[in-house]
Each structure stands twice: as C-alpha cells, then as structure tokens.
C-alpha cells in the first residue's frame, strides 16, 4: 500500500495537519501547494504541529534546504514522487537467489555445452 500519486482532498473528513503527517511519513518527494498557488516539490523530513507557529521542513528536489514553511501558508500536499519504501526487496532477493541456484544446478546437471 503506497500513497504514491495521491492528491488529497482536504475538507471535513481530512485535515491539512493529517495530510502533513502522512507526507512526513512518506519516503518520497511530495509537492507542497501553497495558499498563494505556488508549488514546491521536495522531501518533507520534519513537521511540528505543536510549535507556536506550526511548520514543515523540507529539502527541495535540487537538494536545497532545509526550507521551512508554516502550516498557515500551505493549502495541500500532493504525493507526487516515487515511494522509495514501497515494494518488497526481501522477497525479490529470495526469488532471484532461488532462480540463480536452480540455474546453477541445471547447468551442472547438463554439463558443458
């Protein structure tokens, strides 16, 4: 299950603070849509909703940062980047390993060509 590609609809059932929490937990870039309609794409690595002025911090896609944006300037956060934690590389590794072992055994059994 990944949030990759999700554009949240903030309203009665989903608050901006909840979306920011999900963005903070997301291991990919997101696009922060500001109330002035400008957008900034980057990796949200921190958020503090209990600070006197709640804020997020991010590194943009060029690696510049940390950039601090108050909650009050944010309209939405879109999950636009690839989720780097998605998938199951353990399973993939085991399958590849089994395939390689089977290939090796098959080669040994058939002998040199």
């Amino acid at each position, binding site marked *: 299950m990944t949030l990759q590609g999700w554009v949240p609809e903030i309203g009665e059932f989903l608050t901006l603070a909840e979306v920011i929490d999900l963005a*903070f*937990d997301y*291991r*990919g*870039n997101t696009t922060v849509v500001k109330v002035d309609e400008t957008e900034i794409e*980057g*990796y949200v*690595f*921190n*958020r*503090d909703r209990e600070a006197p002025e709640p804020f997020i*911090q991010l*590194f*943009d*896609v*060029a*690696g510049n940062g*940390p950039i601090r944006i108050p909650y009050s300037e944010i309209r939405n956060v879109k999950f636009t*980047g*690839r989720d*780097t*934690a998605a*998938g*199951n*590389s*353990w*399973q993939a*590794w085991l399958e590849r*390993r089994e395939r390689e072992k089977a290939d090796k055994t098959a080669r040994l059994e058939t002998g040199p060509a």
Partner: protein
Amino acid sequence: MSVPLSQMWTVATYVLKQKLSGRKRYPLVLMLEPLFRCNLTCAGCGKIQYPAQILKTHLTLEQCLKAVDECGAPVVSIPGGEPLMYPQIGELVHALVKRRKYVYLCTNALLLKEKLEQGVLKPSRYLSLSIHMDGLREDHDEAVCRDGVYDRAVEAIKEALRRGFRVTTNTTLFDGASPLRMREFFDEMMGLGVEGMMLSPGYSYAKAPDQEHFLRRGRTHDLFSKMLSNAKKQWKFNQSPLFLQFLMGKRDYECTPWGNPTFNLFGWQRPCYLLQEGYAGSFRELMEATRWESYGRKSGNEKCQDCMVHCGYEATAVDDTFSGWKGFKDTLVATFTGKL
C-alpha cells in the same frame, strides 16, 4: 569482554561525573550519520529509503564536529548509510581522535581495503573499525542481499588487522537465526583475530522491506540464551555484559532513548536512532523538549514493545553498572570470568 581498559576508564569516569552532577539524562554514544547513501540495500535496513536528492547530500565536516561538541558523549559511532562513502571520512575520524573520542566506524567493509591502501585512516586506540557481519557466509550474504560480501569483508578485516587497526564486528540478528550457526560464527570471527563482537536484535523499521523476520521479545530471549549460554572463553564481546544478560532474559531493563542520540542531515532525531518522529534543531532542544515519557516499554508505546536494540538498552546497562554495588559487581564478575 573486550573493551580496552582505557576506554572503560573513560566511559566510567564520564558516567560517574554525570551522576555526581545530578544529570538525570545524559548521552553515552553519539550516533553520527554523515550520509544516508549506501552501496548495499539490505532487506532489514530502514535507513536508506530516500529520494535521490537526499541520498546525494551529506553533512559537512563542520556540521559533524559541531554535533559532536554539542553532544559531549565520550563515544561516537559513525553508521549511515555507508560511512566510507562520505568524502571527508578521513578528516572526520582524525578530528574525533584528536578530541579523544572513542570512535566506532560502522562499515560493511566493501570499500575498506581500498581506503586502507589509500591511507585514509590511521590506526589509533581511539578508533575501532566495526565491521557489519550478520553471520556465516551464507547467512551474511543473504542478510545484505548480495553474494560475495562476506568474503570481501573477511579480506578487509585481515588487512585492517595486519595494519594494526582495532577491529570489532557488529551483528544484527533476525528471526530464523540459528544459535548453532551463530556459535560457529563467533568462533570464526575470533579466529580472524578481531578484538570483540557486538550483537543486537534487529528492529522492525516501518520502512524496511522485510517486516517478517524481526525478533519478538520472547524469541530474542530464547535465541540469545541458546547462543550465549556456556559462552566459550575465547569469545570476546565489545559491549556491556549486563546488556547481553538482558538479551538472554536474565535482566529486565527499561529503554534509555536519550542514551544514543542521533544526528544526521535532518538534525537531531527524535526520540532515538530507530524511530523518526521529528527533528530538533539543537542537542539541547532534543534533550529538553522531547516527551521522553512517551517512549520505552512501560510507556505502552507499541513501537517500543518488542524493541531490545543496543541503542536503547546498552545505555541502561551501563547506567546500571554505575548505579549501585550490585550492578558494578555483576559487571566485574561477567567481565573477568566471561560468564553471562
């Protein structure tokens, strides 16, 4: 146990000073992560899943040293990512040694031989190359998801020992680990001539791909009891014997999440090396503004219930050593008899 006397003395005097000054919370080991980039993608690792711009970035040398000075811990562990991929690793280690910090450079050793040949690192009693080894050849290569890594690490260990470096190993254990094979592994590592071994159960990182093989508490006790009961005299462990007894189920400890504070590209990580619930801008802010009561087993926090990892519990064990005669006596007995 194999911690050198000078290191024991440094840690002991530091802890006693903290206690005499009435400091309730103090750091013991700084976990300094100069970068997240790694040349392996181990299935149990939750440290490297980041977008490209984060993986390409690293701390500056100045940021690293500022964090070390701010924190004040006598021991600095440099994990990552792979620290040998940090462009200024030589300068960083040199500066830490100059500050008389005991440094554990935690590496998978893939680049170690090359770095040693280039003269990037110099042997010192303050520097221990802590090589990631998760078991015998087949087990290790499976854990790191690449064949051949074990052999390269062994080659690098031999080269480092030949050049006079202190070498230790660090091993993370997952469910399914065989106590018998681990005992064989201990024989093999000691046979190579390493100074000591460090063990810890793995932690179920929310972002790690492999979620099925992390140890639960009961299984941890069982595994460590089987592995370490009747420990051979020649096995040396570079860690608190009380922590190993805790892993065996002989002691009940609570987590000390501030014991191994973590600094990386994002700042001071709250609350610990394993959980990422936010970042503080300074070490002081981390210590003073983190809700420590929300972490550890007794807090009821579900993320902490099965955790028995060294970064939370070894500091507790060390504190126990200096909290009364019993802890002190138990540590001495285990240290000098080797019995756990």
